[in-house]
């Protein structure tokens, strides 16, 4: 540069030093400008690429999409943008985290600027490319952390199954769905028999282990679409969409026998466990979550009354009597 300061020289100098890619294409998509950032990241010098079609030099750039984008800028004479959030990159450039990145290519935010000629028409489109890799990495880490927090907020800390709040949400959703599409829906409420005795005789830690054990064994046979969670201290609920009372009774019986046949283990001791289960089905009439839970609870009570370690439906004779 000459010793006198010339603003156009300075701008030219700056354009080749900043951490932003600057490229321009003419109406035939030939490269007109290719700054140093782009030389450094692509490994292609300006003298190699200027004058050639962008697609010849970079065949991996999605041609129909880019042509449409550039055309809309040319026709509408308006800025356009792309963001790494929707389109990770325009060019496959390496980023500055070869060891610590965990990401394949540089993430890019691009701006498309119409360059007006003397006749008021667009003669070139200038594209600026910003390295958005850092932002992308932060966002990914943040999203992962938020996902963990969201999961934790619906899970029971001790057993890892869903918590009561999630059960309530899910039940409301399933009841709505069952009503709207006229599908079956059943609910199981199960309770660990004589749990107080375990706690009193073997201690709370043993009690915790029993709860964990029952959660694992009872939920084992369930489907993806079923929702199993801890409803109270030693109480669990299973929501079974598309299942009627008969089907739910089968599932409940399977649960009961699995628990009865698999004692819990604590500090070398084997602890025999059984559960009582109550079954309730939604039926054709509209139901609230409360009434369904109430019916399952009554059925559970019936199981207890009849001697525990069994599955019951609510006594329909009582219904007839009430009706």
């Amino acid at each position, binding site marked *: 540069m000459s010793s006198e300061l010339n603003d156009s020289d300075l701008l030219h100098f700056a354009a080749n030093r900043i951490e932003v890619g600057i490229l321009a294409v003419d109406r035939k998509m030939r490269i007109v400008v290719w700054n140093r950032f782009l030389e450094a990241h692509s490994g292609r010098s300006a003298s190699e690429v200027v004058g050639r079609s962008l697609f010849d030099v970079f065949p991996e750039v999605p041609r129909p999409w880019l042509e449409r984008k550039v055309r*809309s800028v040319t*026709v*509408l004479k*308006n*800025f356009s*943008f792309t*963001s790494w*959030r*929707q*389109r990770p990159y325009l060019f496959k450039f390496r980023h500055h985290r070869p060891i610590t990145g965990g990401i394949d290519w540089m993430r890019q935010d691009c701006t498309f600027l119409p360059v007006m000629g003397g006749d008021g028409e667009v003669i070139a489109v200038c594209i600026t490319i910003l390295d958005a890799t850092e932002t992308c990495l932060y966002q990914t880490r943040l999203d992962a952390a938020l996902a963990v927090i969201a999961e934790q907020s619906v899970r029971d800390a001790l057993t890892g199954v869903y918590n009561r709040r999630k059960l309530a949400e899910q039940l409301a959703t399933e009841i709505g769905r069952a009503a709207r599409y006229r599908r079956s829906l059943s609910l199981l409420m199960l309770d660990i028999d004589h749990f107080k005795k375990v706690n009193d005789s073997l201690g709370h830690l043993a009690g915790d282990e029993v709860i964990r054990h029952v959660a694992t064994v009872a939920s084992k046979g369930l489907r993806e679409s079923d929702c199993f969670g801890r409803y109270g201290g030693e109480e669990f609920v299973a929501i079974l969409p598309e299942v009627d009372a008969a089907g739910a009774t089968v599932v409940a019986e399977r649960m009961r026998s699995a628990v009865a046949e698999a004692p819990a283990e604590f500090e070398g001791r084997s602890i025999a466990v059984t559960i009582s289960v109550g079954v309730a089905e939604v039926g054709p009439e509209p139901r609230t979550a409360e009434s369904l839970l109430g019916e399952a609870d009554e059925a559970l009570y019936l199981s207890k009354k009849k001697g525990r370690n069994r599955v019951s439906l609510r006594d329909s004779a009582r219904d007839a009597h009430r009706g």
Partner: protein
Amino acid sequence: MNPEFLDADQKDALQEISNIAMGTAASGLAKVLESFVRLSVPRISIVETSRVAERLSTTLGQHSEVSAVRQAFYNQMEGEVIVVFGEEGCADLADLLDYEADGPEALKQELLLDVSNILVGACMNGIAQQLQSQVSYSPPEILCSAVPLDRLFAGHRPTCEQALLIEIDFSLEARSFSCNMLTFFAPESFGTLRTSLARFLESL
């Protein structure tokens, strides 16, 4: 600043200026979508930013779910434009632009961002030009995706108490696509706006 900071003539002028700018925006959209675009008359009001969502339920209440794009403008006039899309119409939009309706979420978002950018650019450029002002833009970004209307601004608290709002609705004939463009001018711009409008009216 007096809430009614524009007099009747200035308000009328702003409405007509918006109308002209929106016409260009609709034309841009029509070119891209190759479809006839219907425009509503621009509605201008001063709103309390904390109550915007409430207000919107009257005009946008028919959509069960919405997606929205936001884009800021700055320089001689300052504010944000939010373009709200009814979820039902997005499949139509995809269809018109030869995107698969059930394509990946990122593609659908790009679509909304592009359509929004066309509208905002044309409209703000139109307003700025007629008022002899300069504006620059931030890139558009997705504000929310497929949420019920009352969650449009969820998690975002307004920085100012009041704004000038210009509302315009765009829809396509014989298609379920529609979008509402909400242009908010920040209070910092009220003075400039009034001066520019006064100058504009004087030239008539």
